[in-house]
């Protein structure tokens, strides 16, 4: 089932053509590996889906409805969540506070509302349990390992019924053991029927977790095929330009 459909999307910043006429479809419960060299347009493309940028040309449709996003908050309301490359965590706050940042649970009546610590700790604990991550909601993020920090960032996407989760280089800066943890988290999201877009430089990660691979080069989509039908060698060739298009 198609969740999001991009049709002829382009984005230019002044004279620079960052994304050029890209179309693709995201399916529910599918992990798409989005690959390409630095400056290939991956991040720009994802930022348009997340509402950070507006496309210069082209349209996006979500569940058949046209989607025009002006701000990241609107993307979130439509069920599009993003895990930022730097995770966007506040080190001085607890795991639960980070999970709920910008969407705090409150209790009380009328304008007199106070933070509902208990409910936030409980809900965050439930999510970590579901993610099978040993992360304590009351711990400060600054004391956490790379894998736990990833879990906190991913837990954010599970607060509401997300349809699409965009992940920008989630395995770039963590240890080998933690990479396995994060890949498990991604499989977990997929099993919940969420469409996952995984931006990554790491070939083994994409080939172990993705169902489909999209390769971009210089703003254009040069490949879009099932992972079984491709190979790391082919993708490398596509990224570098040794193979023109498939």
């Amino acid at each position, binding site marked *: 089932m198609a969740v999001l459909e991009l049709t002829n999307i382009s984005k230019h910043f002044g004279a620079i053509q960052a994304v050029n006429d890209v179309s693709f479809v995201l399916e529910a419960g599918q992990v798409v590996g989005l690959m390409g060299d630095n400056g290939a347009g991956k991040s720009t493309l994802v930022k348009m889906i997340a509402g950070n940028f507006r496309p210069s040309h082209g349209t996006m449709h979500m569940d058949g409805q046209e989607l025009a996003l002006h701000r*990241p908050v609107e993307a979130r309301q439509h069920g599009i969540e993003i895990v930022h490359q730097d*995770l*966007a965590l506040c080190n001085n706050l607890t795991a639960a506070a980070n999970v709920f940042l910008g969407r705090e649970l409150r209790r009380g009546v009328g304008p007199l509302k*106070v*933070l509902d610590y208990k409910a936030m700790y409980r809900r965050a604990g439930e999510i970590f*349990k579901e993610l099978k991550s040993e*992360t304590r909601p009351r711990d400060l993020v600054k004391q956490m390992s790379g894998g736990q920090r990833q879990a906190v960032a991913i837990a*954010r996407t599970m607060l509401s019924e997300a349809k699409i989760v965009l992940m920008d280089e989630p395995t770039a800066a963590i240890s080998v053991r933690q990479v396995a943890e994060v890949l498990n988290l991604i499989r977990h999201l997929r099993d919940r029927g969420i469409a996952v877009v995984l931006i990554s430089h790491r070939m083994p990660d994409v080939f172990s977790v993705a169902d489909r691979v999209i390769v971009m080069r210089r703003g254009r989509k040069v490949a879009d095929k099932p992972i079984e039908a491709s190979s790391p060698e082919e993708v490398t060739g596509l990224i570098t330009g040794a193979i023109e298009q498939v």
Partner: protein
Amino acid sequence: MTITLDQTIKQKQQNWLAAVLGSQTFWILLSVILACIFLSFATDSFATTKNLYNITRNVTFVAIIALGMTIVIITGGIDLSVGSVLCLCSMVLAVVMHAGYSIEVGIAASIGTALVIGAFNGVLIAYLGFPPFVVTLGMLSIARSLAMVASNNTVVFQFGPDHDKLLALGGGAWFFGIANPVLYMIVLALLTGFVLRWTRFGRYVFAMGGNEHAATLTGVPVQRIKVVVYMISALSAGVAGIIQTGWLGAVTTNIGAGMELQVIAATVIGGANLAGGVGTAFGALIGAALIEVIRNSLGLLGINAFWQGTFIGGAIVLAVLFDRIRNLRQSE
């Protein structure tokens, strides 16, 4: 015994005792108490009703502004203009009341001035991206100059028809003989503590200080909150100015000169981190108290007043040294 995932997630990392012993505020509080005990025995004049009344009242002006400053510092900002804003707000109150208006009008004008100045600082910092240091340094100069313009650089000591009301507001003791300013300070501290811990606004203040970029990405209205934060800081200076005017019974254009440094010192001694993300309302009070106890005790012990700066400066360095040692131990 195997530990299940459930148990791990439910486990609390440290108990409250460890949290208390690990906080800078606790150790500063302890040193304030020890200093008071020492002074009670070392001098005859410290533990007298009159001296304690004096100390508690003197603490309040710095402490009230330190509450506002703490919020600013938690966001990672700084407000250097508070001393001058205190002066300007006192002067607006004095001039308006001297002109024959009631105390209500005077206070409204004074609070209004504070809010406008805070909003001006905040908008420049939040929306135009000025460094807080520069904007508030400029305001330090502007506000004091405006106070001179408003009063033609004279001393105002007659406050029109509501003269006595104003003096009672600042100089009275309506509740069990506790000086009024102390009551205001306690109420404001409780309010600040509540806002920081229990409201979404307070949570956002801490988030901005921890990682402003992350706060923006997660949908925190960073710019709006910055404006409000600088308005609160100016407001706290305005409130302190009104109370101080009532207590002193006169306003000159040099009140509050250099006060910003005392206020910042109080917040830092009380555990706020100038890099942002850390600070408490209670800490601000304790920091202000320590500074006042140092000043008071030097006088009572007969130590030359020129040493004051050395002791207060030493307290700042010691307080932060404690924090550094703790961090060094953690990072090893």
